[in-house]
């Protein structure tokens, strides 16, 4: 009966029945077109990786089947042979209700290419007859689809332009990391609350974590109300009309389903096509996009959110496990020592042996594993036929098939061991490292080729290659180990913790919290620091006491520049140019420049060898005289001049013995050289008048000078240099 249906059913629907009732079809992309699961995906396609001991694609197919889909086109790309082989062996090929067809293409390097390929095939065979479901083979869900497809069709009937319905699910993302549970970036979408039309789609990039979204003004013009959500998760389950395929064909640069296609439709407004959303509430949907989501989805499965696709139910030819108390799933033939402590939410597969004194919690252990004595396994995913010898410690790691971990070895959080790796005795695999028997591909281009090359040539010869490599270089994982520790790609290193299986470490979290707090205080201190200079002396002091990092580095750089300028006698113009450049790159005010420049000049004077205070004064005087133009460039305004005085005062406070006595003299010098105007000095004195006694030391020191300045300003241009010298 199954065979009949296969042959006959398709043909019939191609002809006449099509109009009355369309077959429910789905396209399943058995390739993620991403490299996030490297190095594991170099040897096995992602859809065949086990999640809670069942290959991902089985979850997807089982769900599609029970959701009423009748025909699935499995689009295979990388490792297509393996996928097809697996499907042939599994019961999916002979399934009575679900017709599984595979489509193979090695040229496609993105979802866009895959759909274009489908479109080309389509014109020849017209396989896709109507609306179809587009999912990737790493989706775990239990949502019903028939109603949704019906809804889509009806909407399509009313509105020709409604070509796609996108499934979303509420899932709050972390306040700290702006990351969803599944390790993807926070998603901002804008939806019309009445029609559920998608108006805006934006995945928050890490470089603007401020959480700001820009919506086009026109959105608000055309829509009476817009619902903006940041707590939605994109399930990557789309109900598409055939127009989607042709859209991909027309826009040959579309690669990514969301980044290009959805954005393209929304922003470029192609032919007025519209995308709608459908929010699911009671059912589950999640896509395994990275190691973090691998961890999260595994736990969701163990917690039974994906019911009935849970380990104790045989949903796709998997052998069901027995569910015990505390959410422990155990195969019937597990050999477990009495002294072993198996904790909550753990899955143990068939034929696995667990030794004495083992501590296992929150982990998934596959079939045919051997675990020695006194092993600690926490939050880890051990796949099939893994041997773990006595006394190992494994925390938050993924260990692929056939791995051997020798006695006493330790896997730190976030480690991924690819197939058949051997970890040497007592070797500690550092956190977040990825280990494979294959060497890390050097450039991005070459690894694409590599992945396809071994997919077509099969596994035999690359396995022999592995053995060679094993012999040649075995020391990276201890003397008796085998495997290469992959370098994290540039830029990705900092991000490693974000997408790892390990939970975000505590110190990282506190670091982020700290950073956010700093940001907040920065916002409060930096902005007013320049603005409030004139009015509030206290704020300046606090600012000075609490030097902010940027300013510190800026000052250092300015100091370097000035030093070089003095030593090499560079022209003033060039120095100002350089300091201006620094100022822009550090986002400083010109008052900051004035302060920094003055600081470096005085510092230079102090650093020049001298025996007495008068010698120091001479040094300072010469430098100021030579470089007054530079300083003058930045002290055009009263505020900037005050900043210079403040800076000077601060320096004197730091080294009261050397510079302290010279305060008035240098201040006078600056006045003489027209660097400072009398207004600035007087203003400074006024501000200081209200300060603490301790702060007034230098004010008192130059009391007479200020007095004189006051008189001078009253008597206008009276020449009173002699009077001054008396002080």
């Amino acid at each position, binding site marked *: 009966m199954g065979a009949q249906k296969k042959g006959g059913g398709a043909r019939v629907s191609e002809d006449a029945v099509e109009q009355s009732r369309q077959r429910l079809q789905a396209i399943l992309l058995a390739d993620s077109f991403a490299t996030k699961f490297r190095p594991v995906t170099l040897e096995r396609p992602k859809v065949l990786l086990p999640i809670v001991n069942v290959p991902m694609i089985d979850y997807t197919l089982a769900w599609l089947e*029970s959701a009423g889909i009748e025909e699935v086109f499995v689009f295979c790309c990388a490792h297509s042979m393996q996928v097809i082989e697996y499907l042939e062996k599994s019961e999916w090929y002979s399934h*009575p209700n679900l017709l599984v067809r595979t489509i193979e293409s090695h040229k496609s390097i993105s979802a866009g290419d895959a759909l274009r390929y489908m479109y080309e095939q389509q014109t020849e065979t017209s396989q896709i007859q109507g609306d179809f479901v587009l999912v990737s083979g790493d989706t775990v869900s239990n949502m019903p689809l028939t109603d949704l497809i019906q809804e889509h069709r009806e909407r399509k009937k009313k509105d020709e332009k409604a070509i796609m319905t996108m499934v979303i699910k509420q899932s709050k993302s972390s306040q700290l990391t702006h990351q969803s549970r599944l390790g993807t970036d926070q998603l901002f979408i804008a939806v019309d609350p009445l029609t559920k039309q998608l108006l805006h789609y934006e995945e928050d990039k890490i470089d603007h974590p401020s959480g700001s979204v820009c919506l086009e003004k026109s959105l608000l013009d055309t829509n009476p109300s817009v619902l903006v959500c940041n707590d939605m998760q994109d399930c990557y389950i789309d109900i598409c009309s055939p127009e989607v395929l042709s859209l991909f064909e027309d826009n040959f640069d579309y690669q990514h389903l969301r980044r290009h296609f959805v954005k393209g439709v929304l922003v470029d407004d192609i032919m007025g096509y519209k995308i709608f959303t459908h929010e699911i509430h009671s059912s*589950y949907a999640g896509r395994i996009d990275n190691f973090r989501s691998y961890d999260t989805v595994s*736990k969701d499965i163990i917690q*039974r959110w994906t019911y*009935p696709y849970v380990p104790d139910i*045989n949903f796709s030819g998997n052998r069901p496990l027995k569910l015990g108390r505390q959410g422990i799933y155990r195969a019937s033939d597990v050999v477990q020592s009495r002294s072993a402590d198996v904790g909550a939410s753990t899955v143990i597969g068939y034929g696995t042996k667990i030794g004495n004194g083992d501590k296992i919690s929150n982990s998934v252990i596959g079939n045919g594993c051997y675990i020695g004595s006194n092993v600690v396994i926490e939050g880890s995913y051990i796949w099939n036929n893994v041997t773990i010898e006595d006394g190992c410690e494994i925390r938050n790691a993924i260990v692929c098939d056939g791995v051997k971990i020798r006695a006493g070895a330790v896997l730190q959080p976030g480690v991924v061991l690819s197939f058949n790796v051997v970890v040497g005795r007592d070797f500690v695999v550092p956190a977040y490292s990825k280990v494979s028997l294959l060497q890390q591909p050097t450039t991005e281009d070459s690894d694409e080729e590599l992945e396809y090359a071994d997919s077509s040539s099969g596994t035999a010869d690359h396995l022999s290659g592995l053995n060679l490599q094993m012999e040649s270089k075995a020391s990276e994982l201890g003397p008796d180990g085998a495997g290469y520790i992959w370098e994290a790609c540039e830029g990705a290193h900092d991000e490693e913790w974000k997408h790892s299986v390990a939970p975000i470490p505590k110190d990282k979290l506190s670091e982020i919290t700290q950073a956010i707090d700093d940001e907040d205080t920065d916002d409060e201190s930096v902005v007013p620091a320049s603005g409030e200079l004139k009015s509030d002396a206290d704020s300046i002091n606090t600012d000075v006491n609490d030097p902010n990092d940027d300013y510190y580095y800026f000052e250092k750089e300015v100091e370097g520049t000035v030093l070089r300028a003095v030593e090499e006698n560079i022209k003033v113009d060039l120095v100002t140019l350089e300091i201006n450049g620094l100022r822009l790159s550090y986002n400083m005010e010109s008052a900051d420049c004035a302060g920094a420049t003055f600081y470096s000049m005085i510092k230079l004077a102090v650093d020049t060898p001298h025996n007495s205070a008068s010698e120091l004064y001479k040094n300072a005087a010469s430098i100021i005289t030579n470089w007054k133009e530079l300083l003058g460039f930045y002290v055009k305004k009263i505020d900037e001049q005050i900043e210079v005085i403040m800076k000077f005062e601060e320096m004197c406070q730091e080294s009261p013995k050397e510079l302290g006595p010279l305060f008035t003299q240098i201040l006078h010098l600056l006045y003489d050289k027209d660097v400072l105007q009398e207004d600035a000095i007087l203003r400074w004195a006024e501000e200081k008048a209200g300060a603490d006694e301790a702060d007034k030391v230098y004010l008192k020191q130059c009391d007479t000078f200020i007095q004189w300045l006051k008189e001078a300003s009253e008597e206008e241009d009276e020449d009173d240099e002699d009077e001054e010298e008396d002080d």
Partner: protein
Amino acid sequence: MPDVQSTVVEFVNKLRKRKIEGSQATAKCTVELLRSVISHQRVPHANQAAALIDAVKAVGEQLVAANPVELAVGNVVRRVLHIIREEDLSLTTAAMGGLDLLDASDDDDVDNCKGIGYPAMSAAVVAAAARSTLRPPSLQTLLEGTPESATVPYTSSSGADSESKTADKSSLTRKLKHDVIEGVNQLIHEIAGCHEQIAEQAIEHIHQNEVILTLGSSRTVLEFLCAAKEKKRSFRVFVAEGAPRYQGHLLAKELVARGLQTTVITDSAVFAMISRVNMVIIGAHAVMANGGVIGPVGVNMAALAAQKHAVPFVVLAGSHKLCPLYPHNPEVLLNELRSPSELLDFGEFSDCLDFGAGSGSLQVVNPTFDYVPPNLVSLFITDTGGHNPSYMYRLIADYYSADDLVM
């Protein structure tokens, strides 16, 4: 045969994906499937019963494995096996009897003799006779001791059909198969009619102006209550809503549609309301051999409340729900843990489940069933009448053969 195979696969798939719900529906599907298995099974000349038993067992094992929680599947499979054994036994005793009468004569003579000697005797009677020699008679067999010709209407006709030896052989095999299918049909009839059978007794149990409490939704309970209503009894029904699936709401809707005075209460209010209640009536998922009941979650709480206030706790169960297993076997005391999404909204709680941020400590457990020990049950009402919990094991002995208990 391939047809049967594909229907078996389809049914197994449905069971696996938990697409069939309710023990009656499952039982019905199972027995219909087994009937087609039997009718398509090619029977060898020798040892026909064994061939049938093997075929049914093979399919039965698949079905039980597909959803071990649905005990009705196993029950029905065992019932069918029992029918095959009984029919086989009756045939052999009949043949034996024939041989005794005409010593070592031809098959024709046997046939003749059979035609003369046992035409009207039904297989059931023979089986009952045989059973009485094999094990002590139960109350059931004693009560059912009178022959009913209606149960096996075709027994007499088969003898006349055969004329030659080969024809007779085939007729013998056909006869066994025929009788078995007849028996299975009767079982189908019984399962389909269990609601009415149980509902007929409603009038004896529900009295005027009583208050009945029920929990969750059960078709048997619905029919039972409605039957009492039709007999002009006026009474009130409290329906505990049966969180988290709230099937009590559906039941309340139906009851109101049929004109009963209905009150919906929360599960947690059961104890508060129990003092006003005259009788608790619930539908069972399965009845174990010791008289314990597996029912919707919350039932045990209602039973304890009923015991505290000495309110009769009555369980309605069709005979296909009688399970010959004991609950002390951990393999049997199964529970289905369903999705936590029935309890709480994933989206609202997703921040408590963020394993990456280290706050994934929230666990949700959503069991479907509850076990009520036999000492809390006052009365079972099955399609054969009311029974005490302590009598269950005897009832079960009538329905199942001991050979099939372990499949």
